[in-house]
């Protein structure tokens, strides 16, 4: 599904990624772990297509197509979804309106009709239950006045509605208390499917207790320094990043 080869990327002229190789197949969950400043968020943002992140070398293929040639909205319409580390507040637009617009953008991209109002409401209700989201939240402006936990839950709620093929969770666990973490993780797990892949970017191992990864990659200084299975995350938790990075 996703194939990154020797990807170098800069932010504001500063080189952050220094040769990333990563292959993600359908049905897999990959965890990207690493200390602060290792390039985890840059990796997520490069995949989502944020402007300030410039890929200077290497290639990224998504479903066999050149991802870097695609605008962020095209990537989204082709099934890429990033749950933001810092979701943006947008006063003046309700969550419902936004979700409908996003859903219709995808449908238009695929040459389908706009979503029917009744079907849309039903879909929303179903996914709300999944993430235990209060209905009042839907009519509020996007993320405005939401607590940190509500914002993160709203990200996964959007993911549930938009049903991406490749979901990238950028530090979705940060700022969540244990109950919210479980709800979010349950939500993500229920969305897992054979034709879909997830990349979980996280600093800590705790989210991986709930979303169990098939592969764990350790990022340090812009490179993947070690890859393994879920046990690698436990080892990291125990010994710290310094020990693992130093050995490489």
């Amino acid at each position: 599904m996703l194939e990154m080869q020797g990807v170098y990327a800069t932010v504001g002229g500063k080189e952050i990624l220094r040769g990333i190789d990563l292959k993600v197949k359908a049905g897999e969950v990959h965890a990207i772990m690493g200390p602060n400043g290792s390039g985890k968020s840059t990796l997520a943002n490069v995949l989502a297509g944020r402007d300030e992140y410039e890929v200077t070398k290497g290639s990224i293929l998504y479903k066999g197509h050149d991802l870097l040639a695609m605008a962020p909205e095209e990537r989204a319409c082709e099934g890429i979804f990033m749950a933001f580390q810092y979701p943006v507040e947008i006063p003046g637009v309700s969550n419902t309106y936004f979700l409908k617009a996003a859903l219709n953008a995808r449908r238009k991209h695929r040459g389908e009709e706009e979503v029917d109002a009744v079907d849309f409401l039903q879909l929303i209700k179903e996914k709300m239950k999944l993430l235990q989201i209060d209905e009042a939240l839907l009519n509020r402006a996007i993320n405005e006045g939401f607590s940190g936990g509500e914002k993160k839950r709203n990200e996964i709620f959007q993911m549930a509605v938009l049903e991406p093929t490749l979901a990238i969770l950028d530090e979705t666990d940060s700022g969540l208390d244990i109950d919210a973490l479980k709800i979010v993780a349950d939500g993500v797990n229920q969305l897992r499917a054979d034709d879909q892949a997830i990349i979980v970017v996280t600093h800590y191992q705790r989210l991986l207790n709930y979303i169990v990864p098939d592969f764990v990659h350790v990022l340090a200084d812009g490179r993947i320094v070690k890859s393994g299975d879920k046990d690698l995350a436990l080892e990291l938790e125990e010994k710290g990043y310094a020990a693992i990075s130093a050995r490489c």
Partner: protein
Amino acid sequence: MSLAMLHKQEDRYLHEFSQLQADLKAHEVDWLSNIRQQAMQHYATVGLPTLKQEEWRFTNIAPIRDTNFKRAALPESLPNATALQPYSLGDIDAYQLVFINGTFTKSLSRIDELPNGVVVSTLQTAAHERPALVQAHLGRHWGAAVHGFVALNTALMQDGAFIFVPKNVVVEKPIHLLFLTTAADEHLVTYPRNLIVAEPSSQLRLIESYAGLDGVSYFTNAVTEVCLEDSAVVEHTKLQLEQSKAFHMATTQVHQARASHFHSQVLAVGGKLSRNEIFAVLNGEGCETTLNGLYFGNSAQLVDSYTCIDHRQPHCNSHELYKGILAGESRGVFNGKIVVRPEAQKTNAKQSNSCLLLSKDAIIDTKPQLEIFADDVKCTHGATVGQLDANALFYLRSRGMDLASARSLLTYAFANEVVDRMPFPPLQQKLAERIWGYLPGEHRSEGEVR
């Protein structure tokens, strides 16, 4: 300057005034003639505002001064209901008073089944039928120096609405005043004048709309006076939807007694050169005043919003949020004055103004003015000017919206924050839809995606 000098200069307004006096002689009451006479005298003294005056230094009214406007009369044939449609409140159940070229038009209006004791009539009718009430309030509540446009409105006023809500009465349905100018000829001028009196503990929702039906240049010089007695609640919405070649100068004077609530929202969309002024005098303890506004500028429009909140008594709260969106080479002016008098301890006044510039040639002049003479008060103000937020744009795009749609949605969102605060849900929802069509720049057709 004196009237004699104006006469010598062949001032066109004095000429209009002389003609009006001749026309009205037979059927206008003396006290009203006197009010006109005094106002004309005042105009002779102050003249029209100039750039040298602090309150007008960003707004050059020369195009109005230099145009020879003609007093408007009813057109030969009245517009039909379909022509009014874009400016009416649609399916919102409301009383409606329509003024065509400044003259009340009964056939297009609906004022049946008013609650007991409520008076809704034209100001002319009220001046004859309820002289004491009109005399007690008309032109009596000016909180600041009266400038030339208000003086001219008073001297030359045609007609407008008179609304009286007696003690403890709640008028459930909103009252919509719709002022339309229609003409084949250029350069008509109208002088709408409205007077609203809300007795103690009464409640009223008032909507004033101003629009033109033809693409010619004309001038609206409007004044509305609102008097809130103890604990009265008035929600006031002003929709300025004039044609793009029109001139619009309007002043709302609000006088608040103890524990009254005045909630205002202004939407300024049209006009080549427009200014909307609100003067609110908080003349009793425990008043609440909310002034929210939204202004749009396109091509070479100049849109000026002037507000003055005068805290004269203790324990009053005022909240103000004005937002503007400017595109093309348009120019916006925001002047927000807050006065806190020495007696007005425990005042809480909050003002914020932000403006979105969609083009590099658009200009905003923003000027908060705080004059605080009491020591135990909380007053804040903030002004921001900016472009669309890059993070928010990326957020929307990352969910699949294309760049143009994302820009439109954020522009809409910026504006809708003001509409969201409107206290009357049916109108709030209607405007939330309609502002898609009013947005400046290239967003006008987006509305139908809803």
